[in-house]
């Protein structure tokens, strides 16, 4: 009798019998969820690191003494020496970065150079403002954008399609500052003075009671990102509507609403989700201008203020925080897009 063939069956190899390297490779292969997540998070971490180097590179590559640039030409040599010591400018660049990174990993971003607060104290209450702004803008932008994109894809060449196309070309081109100014002119000054032009947030009232201050800023942000989402939603939906399975669904006599929303839309959804992810990341950047334009005390205006003051510690911290937020948005949108892809839900053999 030969030995039992079960354990040496070449087809049904049990996981335990594979070498560690093979199992790791299987686990990390891009099609599996684990490999997908590890890859995405790894790439995100690399992107955050690249960005966190940007401040260092910017201060290092460019000519001139950083401490001198921060303090201005007329600062006394003692002050310059003091600042050099504080920023560890006497250390070589990589050691300085390592020191900063070691602290930053544990959430310690140091102290602001300008107002003696820790960076966290300086920015903590600003997150809520930016958060509400971005949330508000998203509520305004994405449902409308997706609806318009899908509707104009369903009837190409219709009046709605042409109107939406023209509007996306127009709104896609105009900078946020200008949109904000136009909205202020229209709704806050002479034409219909219904909303406040400058949002003076009073700190004693909760932010939720002052939502009217967020209407124009959020609308400005929303108009800035809406065209990208419409464009992508329309393109994705049109591609799907031209596929043969949609035609055969129609030929099978399914009602048009069923064809559009149950057959076609699920396949266009992943692209839409990713377009929204890109737009959200754009919103985080656009928030800088919009917050300054409308005087909102958010993360963006804090960033601008500290860049003006050359408050390197705060700039570096805010940059990394924004970078982490952007990377998280991209990872979440990639995961959602993958969850929403019908093809990926079917089990592979």
């Amino acid at each position, binding site marked *: 009798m030969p030995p039992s063939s079960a354990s040496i069956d070449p087809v049904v190899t049990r996981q335990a019998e594979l070498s560690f390297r093979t199992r790791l490779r299987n686990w990390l292969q891009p099609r599996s969820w684990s490999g997908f997540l590890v890859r995405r998070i790894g790439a995100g971490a690399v992107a955050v690191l690249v960005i966190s180097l940007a401040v260092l590179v910017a201060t290092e590559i460019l000519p001139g003494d950083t401490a001198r640039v921060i303090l201005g030409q007329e600062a006394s040599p003692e002050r310059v020496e003091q600042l050099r010591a504080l920023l560890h400018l006497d250390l070589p660049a990589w050691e300085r970065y390592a020191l900063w990174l070691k602290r930053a990993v544990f959430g310690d971003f140091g102290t602001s150079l300008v107002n003696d607060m820790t960076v966290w104290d300086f920015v903590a209450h600003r997150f809520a403002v930016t958060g509400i702004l971005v949330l508000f803008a998203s509520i305004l932008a994405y449902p409308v954008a997706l609806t318009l994109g899908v509707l104009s894809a369903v009837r190409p060449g219709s009046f709605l399609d042409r109107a939406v196309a023209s509007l*996306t070309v127009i709104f896609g081109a105009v900078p946020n*500052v200008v949109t904000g100014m*136009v909205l202020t002119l229209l709704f806050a000054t002479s034409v219909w003075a219904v909303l406040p032009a400058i949002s003076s947030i009073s700190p004693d009232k909760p932010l939720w009671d002052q939502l009217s201050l967020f209407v124009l800023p959020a609308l400005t942000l929303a108009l800035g990102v809406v065209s990208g989402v419409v464009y992508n939603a329309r393109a994705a939906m049109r591609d799907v509507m031209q596929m043969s399975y949609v035609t055969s669904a129609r030929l099978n006599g399914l009602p048009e609403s069923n064809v559009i929303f149950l057959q076609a839309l699920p396949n266009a959804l992943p692209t839409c989700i990713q377009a929204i992810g890109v737009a959200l990341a754009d919103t985080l*950047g656009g928030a800088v201008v919009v917050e300054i*334009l409308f005087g909102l005390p958010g993360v963006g205006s804090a960033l601008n203020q500290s860049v003006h003051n050359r408050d390197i510690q705060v700039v570096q911290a805010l940059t990394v925080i924004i970078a982490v937020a952007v990377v998280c948005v991209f990872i979440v949108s990639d995961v959602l897009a993958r969850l929403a892809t019908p093809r990926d839900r079917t089990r592979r053999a």
Partner: protein
Amino acid sequence: MMKKLAIRNWYALSARACVGLALMPVILIGIFGSRFSAYGPIDFVDMPLSPPTPEAMFGTDFEGHDVLSRFLHGGWQLLGVAGLGSLGAVFIGSILGLAGGVFSGHGADLLYRVLDGIMVFPPLVLILVVMTGTTDSELAVLFVLWLVLAPPVARIIRVAAVAISLTEYFQAAVAIGTGKFRLLVQEIAPNVVPQILALIPIYFTASLSLATAVHFLGYGVSPFTPDWGVMLAENQSGLELQPWGVVLPVVAIVAICVGVNLVTDGLTRRYLDQSVHM
């Protein structure tokens, strides 16, 4: 439809592209406007924020300068930065992208990882970060515009270049032992020129948007510079009394952005990709 419009038949431009063409002269106002201004950009003309008078057609700004003169002087620097910004970004990006189509290996991988890292980040935030470390000048603004806008160009051109490197004539050129540089110059570059040219106006509007925002935030320009972005910032507080200081630059920027976008849209659809009808 509307066959009587000769220009539309001639160049086969869409109605939207014609609207765009009609908006183009605003760029000329921006560039040559300073020759026609009645006053200097920092001449004191009247009381601050006074309404339009026969002397100052659009009134005065927050410091008593003539709004119209300031507007006429305020375009060339912004448009110049935006123009050089897009030209430089497309040039740098095209070289990187073409190189990415021919060269492969760890160096190219690393380069594209770094470019991806830059692209992940909102451009305006990146611009602000770089401005922290630099001395505040228009040259620095130009440099950051290139830094921010070149990576997406590189991506697009690389895709086009890789597509060409898969064609048979390219493979044939490889098979007869053509050197990499020669492949780049003779086989790939001539075939991506249309795409590269199409990117210039697209990145002009992007670069104009960023430059306006950067000037609005007060980087690269001194507070006295007559500039459309600066005018937006300085006249914002006087908006209720005298809106013209904001209205003129707003109208000009909108006209240029929308005009360039419409023309590009029309031209690329006509000459580049017939299949896309947005």
